[in-house]
């Protein structure tokens, strides 16, 4: 029996936890209902991010989306980038099992 999977996109965003609620609002606005958030640690341009205080807590948001929603999502995220917000956004093609 062969398993049927669907071609979708996976988008990952590394950013400050202070942006989480705003990003979630944006997801809702563009019709993305599901996402997963991880607390992550690291270092980079914005200094050490080790979850000691709210100001140095980074999160990784993972979204699996259809190719149509993907375009809208990337446009919305690009708006944040243009305002100077620090977001690392990367995406990959993925196969999803329903």
């Amino acid at each position: 029996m062969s398993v049927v999977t669907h071609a979708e996109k996976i988008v990952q965003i590394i950013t400050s936890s202070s942006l989480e609620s705003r990003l979630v609002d944006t997801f809702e606005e563009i019709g993305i209902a599901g996402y997963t958030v991880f607390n992550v640690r690291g270092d980079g341009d914005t200094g050490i991010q080790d979850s000691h205080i709210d100001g140095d807590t980074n999160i990784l948001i993972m979204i699996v989306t259809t190719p149509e929603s993907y375009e809208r999502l990337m446009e919305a995220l690009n708006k944040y980038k243009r305002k100077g917000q620090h977001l690392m956004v990367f995406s990959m093609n993925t196969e999803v099992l329903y």
Partner: protein
Amino acid sequence: MSGFDSLLIPAVLFFALGVFARLIKSDLKFPEGMGKGISLYLLMAIGLKGGAELAKADFGIAFQSIFWAFIMGLVIPMIGYALLRFRDRIDPFNAAAITAHYGSVSAATFLTAIAFLETSGIAHESYPIIMMVIMESPAIIIGLVLAMLARKKLAKSKPAGEGQEVESLNTGALLKEAFTNGSVVLLMGAMLVGALASPEAMEKVYPFSNEIFMGVLCLFLLEMGIEAAKRIKSFKNAGATLISFGIIMPLIGGTIGVFVGVTLLGFSPAGAMLVAILGSSASYIAVPPAMRYGVPEANPSFYLTLTLGVTFPFNVVIGIPMFYQMAIWYSGL
């Protein structure tokens, strides 16, 4: 207690231990989230203690304390901004974000100052606790306004379509977040509980709010020591101007605090020292998240290095005993 003795209170020694542990690359570390949990306890305990005291307080002085705290919260960041922008040394966005931290307060520094007084058996007024609550937020407004002005100026100097998108941030939502910040809500709420609960009922809570307080503060400062030492590697990145600012600004803010405490509010040297610590300390709880979103052009590494790596250790080791001596001297004039 004066001079070197002031360093020999357990909380400060644990801070030194944290710095030492990090410098020798020890694997000593706190479980994730524990620091945040301990700071919730500390805010709650100080709120309960302060509330119980304030229930017996004079409303006239309490009102004056609130007024001057608000003024300090507005004036100190403006002085800081002028200093940072002197000869265009620091760009306006970083200057706005950094100075907002200095107008706000560090609860951990304030609690260490209380530990310094209580270990020595020196009585102090409880009004500075309510001043701490008031001073958490006004500086955020100043930081946001300064950054907004800088953004407008930048947009005018650049031809249309070039550079970053200048779109107004939702300032109202940002201010609401500043005033409903978790630490502000907890501190205010605990003070209210402390003021409303009957003294007999409050006695039952004393083991939690008073007796273990110093021990928990030691644990917290141990973690703060580790965190402060982590920032040392960012000193080079921040540069000499910013590092010097991290020491000069608390001296200015503390001196203003001594003046406000002694002359304007008529506090004892101990109470005036607590006001000085409010003026000299820099926030690392309420302000950084607000600046990360509100002033994204600024580099978070700069303000966190300054507040945690420079100003916090400076105040804990030098500022607290120094401002206490300054308040004694000034009160005697």
